[in-house]
């Protein structure tokens, strides 16, 4: 037994002490190699775990802040709510758009007129927000800005992307959107909680396109027929609008795609009454009447 060294020994003594420690701990070469190999394996394991943390959590931080910025920008540039008119003051000059005279692009079988999306169709730049989609089932404050395109540039920034080769909300056909399930703020992480009959609202500066969920599907990534104008029939000609959500399936995998189709049921022009589901989003009531106005 060597007597314990004083705590503040001079450097020479300390290195002697270190040398003695090394001496004591000298292991056979084989054990050293195995130990080093083990440490490399542990390092690789930790790196793998860190990558999972990054993918599932870290990517969401930036995407969520991008989403919030996009939403703020979409709200900030909203056209002002038209002035309330009592209808018989005789001058309509400064009353803003009249909900009755929007441009109709096509009419549903039940007579519902679907307004044109001229403004939305022009927002195809990578920095532009076409509109915002709301699905109350996915959360009271769930709001996904829509960008034009489905590559990482568009959908990694929170929100959803519009498949460029699909149709627009103002025409019969498929308005298809893609969003992340597990990464980059997981915009469509809860897509599977959508129920048949749930409303989905696409709010744009042209008006609100109202959809109702009709069908849930799980397909393979190459089954692009779900993006057809009529998803179930590639030969048929579309007679009404469909909104399609696409995301990864199952959770934490990309083996398949989860698909929800919704059918257009209504159009709310600027100046008309906003759907009750949306009135708690204050900026929307600035563009649309919240109801009972006047």
């Amino acid at each position, binding site marked *: 037994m060597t007597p314990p060294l004083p705590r503040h020994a001079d450097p020479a003594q300390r290195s002697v002490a*270190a040398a003695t420690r090394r001496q004591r701990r000298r292991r056979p070469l084989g054990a050293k190699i195995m*130990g*080093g190999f083990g*440490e*490399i394996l542990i390092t690789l394991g930790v*790196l793998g775990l*860190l*990558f999972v943390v*990054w*993918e599932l959590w*870290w*990517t969401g931080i930036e995407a969520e802040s991008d989403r919030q910025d996009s939403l703020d920008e979409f709200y900030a540039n909203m056209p002002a709510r038209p002035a309330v008119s009592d209808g018989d003051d005789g001058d309509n000059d400064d009353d803003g758009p009249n909900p009755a005279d929007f441009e109709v692009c096509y009419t549903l079988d039940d007579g519902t007129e679907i307004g044109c999306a001229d403004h939305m169709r022009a927002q195809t730049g990578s920095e532009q927000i076409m509109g915002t989609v709301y699905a109350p089932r996915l959360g009271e404050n769930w709001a996904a800005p829509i960008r034009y395109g*489905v590559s*990482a540039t568009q*959908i*990694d920034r929170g929100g959803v992307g519009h*498949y460029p080769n699909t149709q627009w909300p103002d025409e019969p056909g498929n308005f298809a959107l*893609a*969003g*992340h*399930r*597990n*990464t*980059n703020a997981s915009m*469509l992480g809860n897509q599977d909680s959508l129920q048949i009959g749930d409303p989905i609202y696409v709010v744009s500066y042209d008006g609100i396109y109202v959809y109702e969920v009709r069908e849930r599907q799980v*397909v393979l*990534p*190459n*089954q*692009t027929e*779900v*993006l057809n104008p009529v998803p179930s029939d590639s030969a048929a000609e579309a007679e009404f609008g469909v909104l399609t959500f*696409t*995301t*990864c399936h199952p959770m*934490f*995998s*990309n083996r398949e*795609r989860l698909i929800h189709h919704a059918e257009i049921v209504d159009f709310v022009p600027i100046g008309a009454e906003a759907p009750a589901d949306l009135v708690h989003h204050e900026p929307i009531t600035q563009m649309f009447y919240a109801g009972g106005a006047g």
Partner: protein
Amino acid sequence: MYAWFFRELLPGPLWVRIILTVVLLAAVVYGLMEFVFPWLSEYSPLGDVTLEDG
């Protein structure tokens, strides 16, 4: 490997070496998160949510 790094390569008394270790680890994790993983993710399938012919 790490024991040797901690004992022989890092300077100063124990508490300095502990602080240095934490700082170095934080720097490595930050570098991975900001630079290495974004590059690596191009080869990861989880971010691929779209449908395409193929």
